[in-house]
């Protein structure tokens, strides 16, 4: 994959480049400030963009703003946003234009290299990657009966779905068969009163998030 990176911290930037190139990806361009991002993306048209939220010149949310601008100018461009901390509001803004090809993760997650690359590839393929911390916050907020009626297993499945995982990954991370996952998902949708969705893609993420956010 061809990747464009925006990260102002040299240590982290080099780390990301090393991580990506050593796993067979190509870093097409690197931005160190907010205003550089959009021209760079327009120039290189990468398969996915990895953007840090806090960037010069203002050291505020330049990266997030660039990501939102990129999603308007290049709707097909998958964007993965990284940050030192996660905010539900930012997740909502990123998902405002749909969950297709969107990722929002804590920088900590980069350390789990395989999982990070998995999320990156998922986003690049049009999927979704939402940080577990955001999902946990959303889940903690809803304390109503349907959610309480879920078994621990079903809760776990729901969380993983909200994070954007497909059935195969869910099965692997829970160490169960895909058929078992399928059954859990059916139960979850039934208990929450959601229309059953078979696809494991971004539509399912949106449906689950919409439920959690309601």
């Amino acid at each position: 994959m061809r990747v464009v990176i925006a990260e102002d911290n040299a240590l982290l930037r080099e780390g990301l480049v090393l991580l990506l190139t050593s796993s067979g990806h190509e870093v097409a361009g690197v931005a160190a400030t907010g205003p550089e991002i959009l021209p760079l993306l327009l120039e290189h048209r990468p398969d996915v963009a990895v953007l840090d939220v806090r960037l010069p010149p203002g050291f505020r949310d330049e990266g997030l703003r660039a990501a939102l601008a990129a999603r308007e100018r290049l709707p097909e461009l998958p964007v993965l946003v990284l940050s030192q901390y996660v905010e539900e509001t930012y997740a909502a803004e990123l998902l405002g234009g749909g969950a297709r090809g969107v990722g929002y993760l804590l920088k900590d997650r980069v350390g789990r290299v395989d999982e990070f690359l998995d999320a990156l590839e998922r986003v690049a393929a049009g999927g979704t990657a939402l940080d577990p911390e955001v999902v946990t916050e959303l889940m903690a907020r809803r304390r109503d009966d349907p959610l309480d009626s879920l078994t621990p297993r079903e809760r776990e499945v729901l969380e993983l779905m909200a994070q954007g995982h497909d059935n195969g990954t869910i099965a692997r991370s829970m160490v169960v068969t895909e058929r078992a996952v399928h059954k859990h998902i059916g139960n979850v949708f039934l208990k929450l009163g959601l229309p059953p969705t078979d696809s494991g893609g971004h539509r399912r993420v949106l449906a689950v998030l919409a439920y959690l956010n309601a």
Partner: protein
Amino acid sequence: MREAIKEAARACLHLTVGAAVSLLCCLMAGVALFTSVVTLTVIGAGVLPESVLLLRRLAGWERRRTAAWTGAPVPEAYLPLEGPLPARVRTAVGDPGTRQDLVWAAAQLLYGLVLWYLSLLLWTPALLVDGVRTGLAGRRPVALPLVGRLAGLAADWSRTLLTPSPSAARDAALAARIEQLTATRAGAIAAHGAELRRIERDLHDGAQARLVALSMRIGLARRAYDSDPATARRLLDDAQTQAEEALAELRHVVRGIHPPILTDRGLTGAVRALAASSGLEAAVSVTGLGDHDQDGPRAPAAVEAAAYFVVAEALTNAAKHSGAARASVSLAREPAALRVRVRDEGRGGAEAGESGGSGLTGMRRRVAALDGTVRLTSPSGGPTVIEVELPCVW
């Protein structure tokens, strides 16, 4: 006629009390003489500030009397007598108010007694004249009101002599302000120190300890690398978990110091984010601040952070304990303060039970450190309203 007699009697009473003040002034002269003698011989310099305070109280009484008689307050302006004895003596002597009080006391000694005496002399002829005028000629009394005029004269003179000059008033106001600022600054510095110690402890016990443990695990993994790859692998897994926990810990500490979203979005944006993720239907209204993320005037960082924590705490309490489904948050810029108000339509009774607790205490402490005020009203049955005012210059 009856009215006129009543008025004159009232004026006479005023002048009589004035005469008593004059006598006290006479005593005061004695005190002043004694004070100067013992002060000049150095042995009793401690008496001086006390005498000045006594003089101030006497002058204060006359001010109140005059204000009551004329219906208009007489301003007062003294430099505060504080600090070690030499400083108090210097202030007591240097204060223009002291000189003014002494001049007044000397004058009062004279006019207080003279006017009182005149009013007493006036009574018999005035009653005769006005009795004839009103009883026989049916005209208005003219002599009795003269007693009132005398009292008015006494009040006018006292007012003139006791009203501080504009510069003295300004000096005294400035001195009072400095005193207040010194006290609040000391409080702010103490609070700042306590905050630094808390952060130091958090980092020391949390992230720092975890990083040490992490480094140890990596060291052990290196040693086991060749001989026991399975153990090395397990140690590295542990190390990664430790690193993630250290990061989470640091994030927590950073949020406690200054929530990053405040930097990103300003107070308005940050509070909107809080409202959106509160789990309540929370409306946010903003006056005088930039309504859109980054524009508009911004309060000092410490004030923004305190306001943010107030809203966060209030909304958390509302969502957890009040049973409310709706809340409203308002932020308002005032000339010299930021006003934060959070209201929920819940069952009220906050602070009485479990729901009060450490959250509200922490909120009060944080606000007090910035010289702000917290007002909580939470009658049983609701609504709960928390109103916080944080002084700041915009």
